[in-house]
């Protein structure tokens, strides 16, 4: 099991490669979409690069819970319900949802993922 620092370095390298950003832009707190400018097709690239770098398999639904965010029983008036938040926490235990919970608008979910979240996710796959 690699150390947190080793995981971060590999994730950082994958993001620098996939997004054309500088090393120092890829901080643990940086958001993938807002800070690093990732677009939807970049996530496909990032997933493949992480799979290769760590020798893991990343099913899309583990990183992108579209099925929850489009499920009428978990979303009301464009916001994720308490039940939906609970489901998200179960599905994405590595994600920090504290800010999102304050105002859980579905449209904001895409900008939730940070570099740190990605590192924590990878760590769960390497256990």
């Amino acid at each position, binding site marked *: 099991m690699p150390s947190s620092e080793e995981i971060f370095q590999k994730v950082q390298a994958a993001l620098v490669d*996939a997004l054309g950003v500088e090393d120092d832009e890829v901080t643990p707190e940086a958001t993938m979409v807002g800070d690093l400018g990732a677009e939807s*097709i970049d996530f*496909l690239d990032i*997933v*493949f690069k992480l799979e*290769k770098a760590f020798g893991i398999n990343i099913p*899309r639904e583990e990183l992108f819970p579209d099925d929850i965010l489009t499920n009428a029983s978990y979303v009301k008036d464009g916001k994720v319900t308490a039940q939906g938040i609970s489901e998200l926490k179960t599905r994405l235990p590595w994600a920090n949802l504290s800010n999102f919970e304050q105002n859980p608008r579905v449209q904001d979910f895409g900008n939730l993922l940070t570099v740190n979240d990605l590192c924590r996710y990878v760590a769960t796959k390497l256990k």
Partner: protein
Amino acid sequence: MRWFWIDRFEKFTVGKEAVTIKNVTLAEEPLDDYLPGHPHYPHSLIVEGMAQTGGLLLSQMEQFLQRVVLAKVAKADFFFLAKPGDQLRLTAKLVGLQAEGAFVEGTVEIDGKRQAEMELTFAILDESYGNRPFFIPRDLLRVLRAMRLFEVARTESGERIAEPQHMLDDEIAYLAANAI
């Protein structure tokens, strides 16, 4: 102009790898027009040739019914120019596959020397992008035959693959409707 930037398949292993040949000739317009006086085969067209090689490798997995588009050139490094008379050998390896896309690693060789390396991301379009097919099946079938794909294509266990029935049906229907 025909938008084919590969001439024929040399090897095709279903869902794994495809190798194509592209012969560079001064008869092609882009060579002389691209940088007059210094004819060479533009790198962008080599990327397109790799996209066609990898895209057909991917599309074949669903009998060429999948609508596959080149979504991102994640990497493309070129080490020297391809010039008239050169023969490019393009190898596309399918290294990642998900429902919404795929990742292909490509290498190009000329006379056994590595000319280029690239990584391409493909998107597989779903119904949200409409349901219109990219190709008329009989036309694509004719191109694939010309490129000798079905002559060289094998499954991983070495079995030949047949021309897809939906393409043959389209061809037969067209011929029947246009019979003299």
